[in-house]
């Protein structure tokens, strides 16, 4: 399948799942995975940085619209979109140029490390923006850990499914 339609399909599917399945209130649990983070991971690495930034901004705005969370997800997404090359270098190779990374060709182990790193950083900022202060550090760390764990598990599930289907 062509790359852009495939991305748009991912975008629609993940946002639909985020809105209609992974809603904490709907599931009756305090936290639910933010699977939409996979969209930030799936954004092509050979795209110009400004396109990646605008895409991150757009993804964040859509998620904030779904959860009515007023900019929290947008800020975290923009931050990840900007710092993504650092994570790529940290996980794959110091010398690797971000545009050389092809998600579908990488080993699952490295890819999973990359997902974990992005999820942890993204979620930390999401909950920091929710709390707005570091006074409630205990709650922040608890929510960060619980939600990150759920997102990492859900993301692993999605990655395994998509890789097996190839």
């Amino acid at each position, binding site marked *: 399948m062509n790359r852009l339609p495939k991305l748009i399909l991912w975008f629609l599917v993940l946002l639909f799942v985020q*809105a*209609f399945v992974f*809603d*904490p*209130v*709907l599931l*009756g649990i*305090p*936290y639910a995975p933010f699977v939409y983070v996979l969209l930030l991971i799936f954004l092509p690495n050979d795209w110009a*940085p*400004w396109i990646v*930034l*605008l895409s*991150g*901004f757009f993804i*964040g705005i859509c998620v*904030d*619209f*779904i*959860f*009515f*969370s*007023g*900019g*929290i997800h*947008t*800020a975290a997404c*923009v*931050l990840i979109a*900007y710092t993504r090359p650092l994570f790529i270098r940290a996980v794959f190779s110091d010398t690797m140029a971000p545009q050389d990374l092809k998600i579908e060709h990488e080993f699952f182990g490295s890819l999973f490390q990359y997902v974990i790193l992005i999820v942890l950083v993204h979620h930390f900022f999401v909950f920091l*923006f*929710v709390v*707005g202060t570091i006074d409630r550090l205990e709650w922040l760390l608890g*929510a960060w850990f619980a939600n990150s764990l759920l997102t990492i598990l859900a993301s692993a599930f999605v990655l395994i499914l998509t890789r097996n289907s190839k």
Partner: protein
Amino acid sequence: MQKLLNSILRNGTLLLFILLFGLSLRFIAKNHNYQRSSLLAFNNAISAPFLEARYTFFSFFKRQVHNEQLVAENQYLLEQLITINNQEFLLDSIPFEVIPAQVIRNSIQLKHNHLTLNVGEKDGVKKEMGVITANGIVGVIENVSKKTSGVISLLNISLRINAKLKKSNHFGSLYWDSESPNSMVLSDVPLAAKVVVGDTIVTGGMSAIFPAEIPIGKVSATEVPLNDNYYNLRVSLFQDMTNLNQVYVVHFPSADEIKKLINDIENE
């Protein structure tokens, strides 16, 4: 000038990042109810069909739990009806009606949480009506579209509600401090009230939003701030705000008259 242009072009990504990140932080900072109100109504109007479909789908699996909740609520309402019928004199009572509604969206993770109900203008819902369940209060209607309405949840740091101790009629101001979705704080209760853990907190009835004596929760801890003559009471809510389904919008037929009266008194 040429240098400036070159510098901008070289650092274009960084500048775009600063712009977008700054914009996002501005969204967060502007995250107040008044600015959000019209946006929430727009959001509700667009997503209502999807939320209704989601509610219908999931309620099929939750029907057993919903039935049990409804049975418990019926029992409670029947008891209330019997109690009222047995009272010879019903002082301080203002007649009110309720509009049944279903919660089709609820949030609990944020500081400004909201709910969406599947009733709107066509069902007679108006701004500033109270929302309750058989277990207690839930929130206040913030905006109304034709078929849906947005509610400021009790779990919203902007909302303050007049409440009192059931046993002694001492009033205070109830607000959420975002500590936990199961508890709130009742402040400004005079020390003369002699509060003990386990006391029941009910609505004060000093507005046209909630009738008096609607249960809210129980005192779980008391605290007197240093050099203060008032209690800060931690209140455990009767209503589980993370599990809302059937709610009732409270409608005072004489709400406008009451509001006018309150305004007149305040302006004097």
